[in-house]
């Protein structure tokens, strides 16, 4: 291995933002034919490092060498020209253009300036089917497809741009197991072709499954570069978070203790359905209960949850509340019934990017109170500071713009927004997606302690372990149908996997 020279070498990289040292003395070496994992907690500097590499940010100090030649990357275009292609965590393609257009945008096959549409569509379909094993109609607009497929299209685009270095920024966070395996097959193939792949992930399993080498960052600093096979899981985690992991160890028992003491039914769904989203299902949630929704991506988990919040309109069935009252037609009505909903789409349905942390926190409560019962600035500051402290939001400044926070901290702000409305039922859709282990454990603990105080939860996660850890009862969905409810002693990975797989 040591005989081989790195294709890309970054040395002593520094990057400062006003008031923040985003990167300090960071090294990164990517070797051809290797998958290199980049790991670290939220705010560790992973995203910043990638943005430096892709020319979104320029570096303050340090050296970037490509094949031994020093280069400077000042724009995404220069980065691409140097042979670096990137697939970002949040898919950033054009939803209203076709799949083929998205793959070839800016590089359309032409003759005499005229775009060869047939040629383009044919080549797009070819790339998708041959390299990714995806058979879709490439002439449909991208928005017609699930996030998972959109992600694959983004990867197809990056693959098609001639690349020596492929950066995958949390590519698996919105893929289900099969799709992850499919992606890994592609990654192995590309590895054999001599491509250097930088793989950013939060999943330890995935890291060990696919990576040869791993670089760990913590608080913008370089912790070290290791061979994946020589690094134990415990060491990896300890290096990432720099503290003991007792947090995660004591979690499973918490849910167990608490079986008998659920109160009355908070909400009951009867025959609820929405065409193309979820087949009719019944589900009741009791006071203080955590109901987990498990199933593959696209099995109807999110779709079912959205009906509880009035975010989508059901085609049949109804929600029944204590006292016999019925129905929730809009998020506003849901909030009045003390239901809260943390969407899986943090950026588009969660944060208000240009507003401050304080304004983001008070938003739902203020909306509930109406225009004229305004929270005074003093009250706003008080609750903001209180929740920032309670949820450990970083940086602890209520006047920071939320868009400048890391994903995990944005998620905490959104949790604060909803907790402030004192919900009785809290729907959490992928609350820990794309956030680090530390924050994940904090959120799981929060769910457990709030449920013990009587708050009910509908908890959705792609991570089975997580669903198992926090739920009192697990509802399994398959192909838009509710297939099974699992509780008590039957709650284990095998049972759930069987239910998900069917048969």
């Amino acid at each position: 291995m040591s005989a081989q020279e790195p294709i890309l070498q970054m040395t002593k990289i520094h990057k400062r933002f006003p008031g923040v040292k985003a990167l300090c003395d960071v090294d990164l070496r990517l070797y051809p034919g290797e998958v290199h994992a980049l790991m670290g907690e939220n705010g560790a500097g992973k995203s910043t490092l990638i943005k430096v590499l892709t020319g979104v940010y320029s570096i303050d100090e340090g050296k970037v060498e490509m094949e031994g030649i020093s280069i400077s990357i000042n724009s995404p275009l220069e980065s691409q020209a140097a042979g670096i292609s990137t697939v970002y965590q949040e898919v950033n393609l054009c939803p209203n253009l076709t799949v083929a257009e998205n793959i070839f945008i800016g590089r359309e096959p032409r003759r005499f300036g005229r775009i060869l549409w047939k040629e383009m569509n044919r080549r797009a379909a070819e790339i998708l089917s041959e390299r990714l094993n995806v058979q879709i109609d490439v002439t449909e607009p991208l928005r017609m497809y699930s996030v998972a497929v959109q992600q694959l299209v983004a990867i197809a685009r990056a693959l098609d741009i001639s690349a020596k270095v492929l950066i995958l920024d949390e590519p698996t966070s919105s893929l289900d197991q099969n799709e992850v395996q499919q992606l890994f097959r592609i990654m192995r193939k590309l590895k054999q072709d001599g491509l250097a792949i930088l793989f950013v992930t939060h999943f330890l399993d995935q890291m060990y499954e696919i990576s040869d080498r791993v670089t760990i960052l913590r608080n913008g600093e370089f912790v070290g570069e290791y061979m994946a096979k020589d690094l134990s899981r415990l060491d990896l985690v300890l290096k990432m978070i720099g503290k003991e992991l007792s947090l995660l160890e004591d979690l499973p028992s918490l849910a167990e203790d608490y079986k008998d003491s659920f109160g009355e039914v908070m909400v009951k769904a009867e025959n609820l359905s929405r065409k193309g989203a979820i087949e009719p299902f019944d589900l009741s949630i009791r006071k203080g209960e955590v109901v987990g929704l498990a199933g593959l991506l696209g099995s109807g988990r999110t779709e079912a949850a959205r009906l509880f919040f009035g975010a989508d309109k059901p085609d049949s069935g109804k929600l029944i509340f204590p006292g016999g009252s019925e129905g929730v037609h809009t998020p506003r009505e849901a909030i009045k019934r003390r239901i809260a909903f943390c969407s899986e789409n943090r950026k588009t349905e969660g944060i208000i990017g240009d507003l401050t942390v304080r304004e983001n926190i008070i938003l739902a409560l203020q909306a509930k109170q109406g225009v004229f019962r305004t929270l005074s600035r003093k009250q706003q500051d008080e609750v903001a500071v209180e929740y920032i402290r309670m949820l450990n939001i970083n940086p602890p400044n209520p006047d920071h713009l939320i868009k400048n926070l890391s994903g995990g901290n944005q998620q905490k702000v959104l949790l604060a927004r909803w907790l402030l409305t004192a919900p009785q039922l809290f729907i959490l859709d992928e609350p820990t997606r794309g956030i680090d282990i530390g924050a994940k454990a904090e959120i799981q603990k929060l769910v457990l302690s709030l449920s013990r105080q009587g708050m009910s939860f509908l908890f959705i996660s792609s991570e089975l372990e997580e669903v198992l850890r926090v739920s009192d009862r697990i509802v399994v969905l398959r192909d838009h149908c509710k297939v099974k409810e699992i509780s008590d002693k039957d709650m284990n990975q095998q049972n759930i996997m069987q239910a998900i797989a069917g048969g």
Partner: protein
Amino acid sequence: MGKIYKHHLFWPLSVLAALLLFNLFYSPDFFSITMHDGHLYGSLIDILNFGAPLILVAIGMTLVVATKGIDLSVGSIVAISGAIACLTISKGADQNVMGLILTSVLIAVGLSLFLGAWNGLLVSVGGIQPIIATLILMVAGRGIAQLVTGGQIITVTSAKYAYLGSGSLATLPFSIFVVAAVLVIALLLTRKTALGLFIESVGCNPSASLMSGIRANGVILSVYVFCGLCAGIAGLLLSSNVSSADGNNAGLWYELDAILAVVIGGTSLNGGRFYLTGTVIGALIIQTLTTTIYMIGVPPEITLVVKAFVVLAVCLIQSDSFWAVFASRWKTRHYPGEKEGIHHVS
């Protein structure tokens, strides 16, 4: 230091100061204010008086822009409002009866509210893009105004109506008080209630706002109604000032000046944060510029070109990308990351 020039009012105020300073040297009369018959006269007073309609329209426009919208129909609403008021008055036997004046003002204001609601409904419930939705009334509105005036210029001889746009109160033009009142109401509504937060929230991320329980459609509707109201009052001031209504030319191109004032004032067309005081200063800059150009005797055929250059300069100095071009020339290191949030510090 360093913080001052990041304040959102820094550039608008500097430009206004620069314009005034320029006048100090080139037209010394500019700052002279004289008293005749209990009225104050002078260029500064004129700027406030003639600028009043533009300031009003720009205030309404600011809130619309903050919701990521735009209202192209304000110029037409100005014309319609003035036309309907003058028509009502001209039909009266005695044009100086207070009841008649009040009725005509109420009809004009009511009609403006209706037109604003029309825009608001097209945008919120109809889901039509704001630029298209308001374009409809921009074009049709001119027609409506001409229909009202019968294609003629309606003149009125009502001293009481003329007071609105050219009378004075406590030695100052009455229109200044109208503007001040609207500004204060707008500031109170947006900053002392949660309306401002909701407007910014909806402008920044409509679907997230909806999920947080904000009635996004209600917010959007209300800003267009308010914008229509502002344009309607501006139309009254304008027609009252000249005691006539011209369906063709009243409020012509007002929408563009108003949008310009909003942008100069620091509110982004991308929606979100808005600055009412910034807008007022922006409108004053435009009005001062117009007055200055006349005062220093620029030939009328090139006044628009001169104006265009000044506006271009104002917009460029507020552009981060523009400064970044210089910064990268002058410094070896620059911080594109700092672009984010530069307006909102302090």
